[in-house]
């Protein structure tokens, strides 16, 4: 299903007279250093960090759903276009989508948080997908290189299993194959 391209015109407004920044359709924004935000998040517990990141993703998912119109019937290209546009407006990086078999993998490149912010990005994606498509998903980071991180989007149980496999030393490709084979056997 074809969708209109993402139009960032007038999406961000800087009101210099009042000293305010606004993203279209959202509340006021604040420009703060990314490292300061990471340092702040490092000082709180994991659940608080996840709640904070989910709230950011909820904002992006809401705006993407508004632009898509019929989010449930939106194509892959349109979702990546608009959801990636909103994440780019937030300065979280560039979104890409990969499909490995039946697995949905979202890749974000150019994140200002670096490796220490992948947990935040995973929670942001969870909140965005949950808000836009009304699906309760679990997002786990598969791999990361210098500027790119891959996140598997699956169920919460599947995300926990993949996280366990990765922590045990399994490569992320093998984890995906194991997940696919388990689903084929009907063990999940």
């Amino acid at each position, binding site marked *: 299903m074809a969708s209109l391209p993402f139009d960032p015109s007038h999406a961000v407004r800087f009101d210099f007279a009042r000293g305010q920044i606004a993203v279209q359709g959202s509340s006021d924004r604040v420009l703060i250093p990314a490292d300061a935000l990471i340092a702040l998040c490092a000082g709180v517990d994991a659940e608080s960090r996840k709640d904070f990141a989910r709230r950011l993703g909820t904002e992006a998912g809401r705006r993407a759903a508004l632009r898509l119109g019929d989010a449930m019937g939106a194509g*892959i290209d349109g979702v990546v*276009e608009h959801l990636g546009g909103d994440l780019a407006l937030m300065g979280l990086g*560039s979104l*890409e989508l990969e499909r490995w078999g039946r697995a949905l993998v979202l890749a974000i490149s150019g994140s200002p948080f670096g490796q220490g912010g992948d947990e935040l990005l995973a929670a942001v994606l969870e909140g965005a997908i949950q808000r836009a498509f009304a699906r309760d998903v679990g997002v786990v980071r598969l791999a990361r290189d210098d500027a790119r991180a891959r996140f598997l989007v699956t169920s919460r149980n599947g995300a926990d299993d993949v996280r366990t496999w990765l922590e045990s030393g399994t490569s992320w*490709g093998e984890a995906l194959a194991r997940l696919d084979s388990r*689903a084929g056997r009907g063990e999940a």
Partner: protein
Amino acid sequence: METRIQRLEALLQRVRRRASEARGSAAVPHEPLKAVPAPATFLGFAPAAAKAPPEAAPPVAFAPPPAPPAPIAPVEEARPVPPVAARPAPQPVAPVQAPESDWPEPVAVAAPLAQASELEVVDTPPPEALGEEDLLEISSDMLESIPPSGGVQVQEREEEPPASSQRPRAAHSLEDELAADMTGDDGREVPFKTPPPESGPQAAPPPMASANVPDMHLLEDELMQPAQAAPMSSFDSLEQPFGPPSRPAPPASGPTLEQLGQTIDLEEAAGPALELDRTAPPVSSPPPPDELEVPLPARESAGKYDESLVPPPEAREELGAHQQRFGEAVIEAPLAAQIVSVPAAPPLATMPAAREGAGFADVSESAPLLRELVARPAVSADVLAPSVGLAASARPSTFLELLDSSIALGG
């Protein structure tokens, strides 16, 4: 001179007429004033003229009026028409010129008020309103000092109203007074002020008089002779220890000396004359962007292709048919050198292998040169590993379908 005499005679007649009317009607008793032992000449002053300076006025005594009516009555009865040269307006006390022959005789003249015209002399307050201090007596000693040829010539020093006084300025001559009466203009300048909204119409201020324009010659003379400046008043000398006087100069006095002293005459420019030339046509520049708009950077992946991208296996047949149709030669080249760019790339940067369900194991180095490939950045080696074991699946039509299938993997 004759006209003055005629006017004064007319005035005197009107005074007589008024006096006769006052006698018949006024029954108010007047308090007797103190008598003076040996007055030679009596001058009755109106209350407004009672503050004459002592050096201009003779020794003061009090003269009793001869009768309850006005003090000018005896004069009228005693002598026909005394030549009185009155200067009503400018001086509070009008100079009285007594007759040459019998000037020592008592002469009582009611001096006009400072603001009143000569006709108002008759309307001066009756004698009962005069106090002892309102009457002056000219003693014989003073009369001796008067030159005999000119008769009695009492010249009061011109009284100047104080700076804070709101009294209007008196006329300088009888003609001015008459002209003011005829025209109805009292000669006062209408103050410059903004009328309140509810005050109604107000007299417009007169145009700027030429006298208000500063004389440049006088200003230049003052600049050339700064030492001859006017001496400071007592107030200026008092204000001197506390700095320069803060009172602003009158607005119509022109530039101050300090301002003129800082004026520098600039010479005319000595450069070449201006020459008009055809100006270069304006270069059309793009309109400046709105300050509230922030241009977004272009995507790095747009228009680029990954070296490692390979065509899907089903495209080989189409590619071979295309080459057979147009007779293009198949160029055998290594895969790493097959980098072709296209004008635009789809916004969705997905892996072609995953999209089309083909694995990297199907790629061989002997693949023909491809013209259209989807750009993707290089992937690391570990990316290629899981593609072997994944089963091919059809491309979902919607994102939600792909999402559901991925969720189903985790159970």
